[in-house]
């Protein structure tokens, strides 16, 4: 990897200041994507700003009808936190399906959604549960956060502080994983909460997207058979050596039905 300046700020304002000063700074959380990307020289930051010591980004807590997950919370911490397991088991199950134990011990929710990998799992949770992303400057609705392939609504030097998940009445995440990497070939989060039914799909398109036809049908009757008649178009879906666009379209319906069964 190319050389860089390593910085380890002690507070959120200091981290933002260091990023603002840097010629081309990048924030480092768990590094599970960033470090391999740097090793491949696909990215070469001038400054790497390590968020490890930022207390503002840590911890999981319940606030009213929401679970707030700090940006540097690891997948393993999400899996093992009793409040998440009790109140949002779909999120704990999603986190447990990411990568492998060593990746879950380091990888973070903030890093995952900031990276916005089209096959990552957390985007399905952020959109499928109607979460809100809190940054150092504002709050961003989950629906507005992911804007394209590896693209988000974050501004330069803007830092994710936490993700707030409203607790749904029911929810489940089902994915068809790539057997080697455990990334989603297709993953579907289905939830029913105060603002209705959400169906969010990851792995299938350039970024996470909702399926309004499925949401409307499930709002009337939350049962897998209502999805039977809905056709998912393969247009603009991803196509690679793992799965064709048509196969991904098929998997969206299969995973959505399984998620509805699991959530019922």
């Amino acid at each position, binding site marked *: 990897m190319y050389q*860089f300046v*390593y910085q*380890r700020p002690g507070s959120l304002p200091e981290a933002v200041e260091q990023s603002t000063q840097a010629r081309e700074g990048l924030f*480092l959380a768990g*590094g599970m994507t960033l*470090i391999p990307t740097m090793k491949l020289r696909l990215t070469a930051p001038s400054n790497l700003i390590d968020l490890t010591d930022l207390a503002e980004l840590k911890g999981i807590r319940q606030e009213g009808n929401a679970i707030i997950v700090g940006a540097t919370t690891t997948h393993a911490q999400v899996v093992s936190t009793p409040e998440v397991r009790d109140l949002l088991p779909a999120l704990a199950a999603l986190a447990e399906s990411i990568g*492998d*134990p*060593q990746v879950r011990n380091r990888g973070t929710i903030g890093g995952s959604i900031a990276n916005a990998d089209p096959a990552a799992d957390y985007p399905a949770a952020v959109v499928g549960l109607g979460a809100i992303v809190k940054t150092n400057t504002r709050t961003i609705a989950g629906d507005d956060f992911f804007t394209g392939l590896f693209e988000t609504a974050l501004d330069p030097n803007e830092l994710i502080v936490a993700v707030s998940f409203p607790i749904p009445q029911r929810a489940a995440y089902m994915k068809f994983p790539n057997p080697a990497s455990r990334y989603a070939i297709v993953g579907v989060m289905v939830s029913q909460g105060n603002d209705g039914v959400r169906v969010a799909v990851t792995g299938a398109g350039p970024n996470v997207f909702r399926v309004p036809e499925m949401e409307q049908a499930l709002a009337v009757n939350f049962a897998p058979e209502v999805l039977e008649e809905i056709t998912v178009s393969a247009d603009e879906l991803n196509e690679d050596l793992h799965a064709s666009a048509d196969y991904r379209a098929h998997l969206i319906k299969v995973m959505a039905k399984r998620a509805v069964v699991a959530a019922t």
Partner: protein
Amino acid sequence: MSVTVSITLNGESVSAAVEPSTLLVELIREHFRLTGTHVGCDTSQCGACVVHVNGCSVKSCTLLAVQVEGADISTIESLAKNGRLHPMQQAFKTHHGLQCGFCTPGVIMSALDLIANNPDPSEMEIRNWLEGNLCRCTGYNNIVRAISAGAQAMRG
């Protein structure tokens, strides 16, 4: 520009001057000459480089040395005491849990993280946990048996 990293490595306080781009596995192998931790794929898939950082198993090829400043690091070399193998190492020997042995240090460090949280894992829990460890001699059945027996020996 080099940076000084101070860690506890297998119970001993040590420090080294490294470039920020130095990987933890390079610090362990090249600076401290503990070559039991291996580099297999160098892309965080194979798990030959698994060590413990503050008690959690991690892939040391995908961590910068500077990130573990102040941390407690344990490698495979920390296990045998006074020439006696750790019960998990002994179980791998007894149950032929290795063929070429290249993946073994990482597999054992990964297994010990599982057993720290789940002292009596089922066969399926062991197999699921080994998602991040590849054995290219394809010796998984004996590896699973060895971990199960090692866990039993550790429970006493």
